[in-house]
């Protein structure tokens, strides 16, 4: 049963990713990416990670996709991109290199254990356990992320302000 859910979700995730790459319209790409993110959040449930399931939906499927859609519509960048190739060898070479990369990672993945891990404690990553680790062992990194987010906010505001100063506004 679990395997069936995994296979369906994996198919949805891969389809979303491929459709994102192939669709010429950036808005469609963002929507297909949303499908991919939701599929991955379902996989998190299968992996006993309820906290990350919620975070994935709120931050990725919610905030990041909305930001992408907003910027795509703001810039009017949804039109099809120029398909002329500047370097004729670029695309075949890129696909070849990507296939080699997939082969390498896949080979290493298949060397690992092929049996499923036996989950002794299904609650090992309950939100309480994550909070406990986050506010004791990982307290310093947690505080540093606060500074990172503050730096991001200041950076975005400064980028916007310097832009106004440059255009004389």
């Amino acid at each position, binding site marked *: 049963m679990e*395997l069936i859910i995994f296979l369906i979700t994996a198919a949805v995730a891969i389809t979303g990713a491929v459709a994102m*790459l192939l669709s010429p319209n950036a808005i469609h790409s963002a929507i297909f*990416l949303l499908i991919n993110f939701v599929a991955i959040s379902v996989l998190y449930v299968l992996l006993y990670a309820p906290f990350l399931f919620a975070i994935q939906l709120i*931050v990725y499927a919610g905030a990041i996709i909305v930001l992408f859609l907003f910027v795509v519509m703001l810039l009017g960048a949804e039109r099809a991109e120029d398909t002329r190739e500047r370097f004729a060898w670029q695309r075949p070479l890129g696909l070849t290199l*990507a296939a080699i*990369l997939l082969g390498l990672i896949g080979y290493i993945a298949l060397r690992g254990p092929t*049996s499923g891990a036996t989950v002794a404690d299904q609650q*090992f990553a309950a939100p309480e356990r*994550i909070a406990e680790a986050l506010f004791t062992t990982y307290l310093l990194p947690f505080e540093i992320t606060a500074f990172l987010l503050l730096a991001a906010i200041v*950076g975005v505001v400064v980028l916007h302000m310097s832009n106004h100063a440059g255009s004389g506004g």
Partner: protein
Amino acid sequence: MVPTSYYILLSALLFTLGVVGVITRRNALVLFMSVELMLNSANLALVTFAMARQDVAGQIVVFFVIVVAAAEVAVGLALLVAIFRTKHTTDVDEINALKG
């Protein structure tokens, strides 16, 4: 139970698709989406290993990765908007001068 290697294979496949996107697409917004796809596939691998080892540390790392990704997207998209105001394009082949 789903074997751990299935999840790792799916993660590898999604990562490769992200790499293909970064290499072949030229719309800067789609490049950003491909980078997000790669971050997500790495997160999937981390959560898989966290489950296999019954260790919550892997999920904490994923939490931090998501925070950094959110900050990265905010700054990256602000940069794109700033570039668009001077260059009027999001095609990365057209953005080839350091001075706007």
